[in-house]
């Protein structure tokens, strides 16, 4: 069930026996994840699936340095995470673009924050916009774009910093099915060029299998790792067609049987 890390050097991301507790607004402690261990190899694409609200996103917060573990240790390239690591990129579920900036000014934000010269930053931003097919829209504001186009801007905004670790929190869940498949293809081709390690959180099992090298299935909250599956579908993958592959169907059947218990447990708990 386990696979060796695909490339040389230590793993890109390690979570070792991590626990994360919150103080809820009404003063109670809530444990989001518990006894959680996970490793992501360099250049590896890992998907994390689990029932809704089980604490999937918490893991990304910990790796990005936006939040700290209550117990355990989180490491990025062997170093303990102490703050926001410049090697990390994050694509959010909801729109996190700056609505008062036009498209090119949104994409250029990262390099400018990091003190790159203005001209160089804008050249780079334009080439990234070209890469995601939005050159004609660089002067548009986010509200003038469709959901799929905004997601492309978000991808360009993240990729321009050349992250070594890419964290994605249900990034395409708000898109319609057709656009989502297009975005999957786009993401895979960007990923294969950039050699980044990816942690992709989703509640959509098919999305996880179509994209990832390995799929982590989490238990219903407090989340811990239930099982890990290697997806040995060949790359490059054609996302639009892979879901009809018999092997894909077989894998998704296996994982779904595993996931279903957790989903039902979560459902009955919510209904109680």
């Amino acid at each position, binding site marked *: 069930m386990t696979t060796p890390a695909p490339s040389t050097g230590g793993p890109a991301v390690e979570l070792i026996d991590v626990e994360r507790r919150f103080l809820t607004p009404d003063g109670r402690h809530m444990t989001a994840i518990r006894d959680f261990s996970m490793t992501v190899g360099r250049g590896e694409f890992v998907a994390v699936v689990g029932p809704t609200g089980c604490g999937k996103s918490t893991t990304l917060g910990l790796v*990005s340095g*936006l939040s700290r573990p209550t117990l355990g240790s989180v490491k990025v390239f062997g170093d303990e995470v102490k703050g*926001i690591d*410049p090697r*990390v*990129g*994050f694509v*959010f579920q*909801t*729109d*996190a*673009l*700056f*609505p*008062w*900036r*036009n498209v090119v000014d949104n994409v250029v*934000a*990262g390099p400018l*924050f*990091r003190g790159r010269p203005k001209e160089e930053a804008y050249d780079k931003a334009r080439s990234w916009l070209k890469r995601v*097919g939005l050159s004609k*829209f660089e002067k*548009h*504001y*986010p*509200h*003038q*774009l*469709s959901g*799929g*186009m905004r997601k492309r801007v978000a991808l360009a*905004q*993240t990729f321009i*910093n050349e992250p070594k670790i890419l964290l994605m929190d249900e990034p395409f869940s708000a898109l319609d099915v057709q*656009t989502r498949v*297009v975005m999957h293809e786009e993401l895979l081709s960007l990923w294969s060029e950039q050699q980044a390690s990816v942690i992709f959180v989703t509640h959509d099992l098919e999305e996880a299998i179509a994209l990832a090298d390995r799929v982590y299935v989490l238990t219903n909250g407090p989340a811990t790792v239930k099982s890990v599956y290697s997806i040995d579908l060949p790359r490059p993958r054609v996302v639009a067609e892979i879901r009809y592959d018999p092997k894909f169907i077989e894998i998704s059947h296996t994982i779904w049987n595993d996931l279903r218990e957790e989903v039902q447990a979560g459902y009955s708990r919510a209904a109680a």
Partner: protein
Amino acid sequence: MTDVTTLPAAVAEPLEARETPGARAARLRRYQVIAWRWAILVVFLIGWEVGATKGIIDPFFYSMPSEIAFRLWEWASEGTAEGPLWYHLWVTMEESLAGFFSGAIAGVVVGIALGRNRMLADVFSIYIKVINSIPRVVLAPIFIMIFGLGLGSKVALSFVMVFFVVFSNAFQGVREADRNMIANAQILGASPWQLTRSVIVPSAMSWIFASLHVSFGFAIVGAIVGEFVGSRYGIGLLINVAKGSFDAAGMYAAIVIIMVVALTADWAMTRLEHRLAKWRPQPHGDQG
């Protein structure tokens, strides 16, 4: 297979030259609204005028539109008993503008500083609450005592009227800034100062502008109340003098002047806001 572009063409299509039925209906509706607005104004003024001449309402207390218009013309052409109208207007404007700008700038700066720093906010929130509970106009006599009858006391009163409104909106605007957007900026590499400048302030801007709209009115209230309590010049003084001589037309004339000033300021503010907020989607439906 033909190539499939995935970009929807919903962006910035040039408008058709010919008017669509929908556009026509919207235009007619707009005219209708304007016609009704004028009609109501005219009926109101004529009713007032006729009522006053027929003795249904007492012109001693309520004056009448023709007399008010005459008084305005008289003030504008010959000046008031206290000196030229324009000078009084200028004094009041000077006080209001100075109070407005100083109050707004201080409100924005303090609001953002406290909004960004939880410790400062926790310490000072109690004092702000206490001071905010004072009805501002009771400070007028104190300011007159401290700053004298001139400009200073009115600016001070305008300042406190404006400061708290702008402050609380700026503070709230900072607190309401989208958490994802902040996290995004941090991960993209923004330092705390860059975060404040390029995410927090722009996202608090619509809150701040909402407060600026009302607070120019408050600045005028501050200036005029200050003038009531003690002054040598200003529109407030004109009202006070008119009151002393039972001159109803004079009081209403002064009110009309203030109304025009306040509306002009509001219009200018709206213009400025539209310029700064060109990134925002245009609201549908009619405006102003």
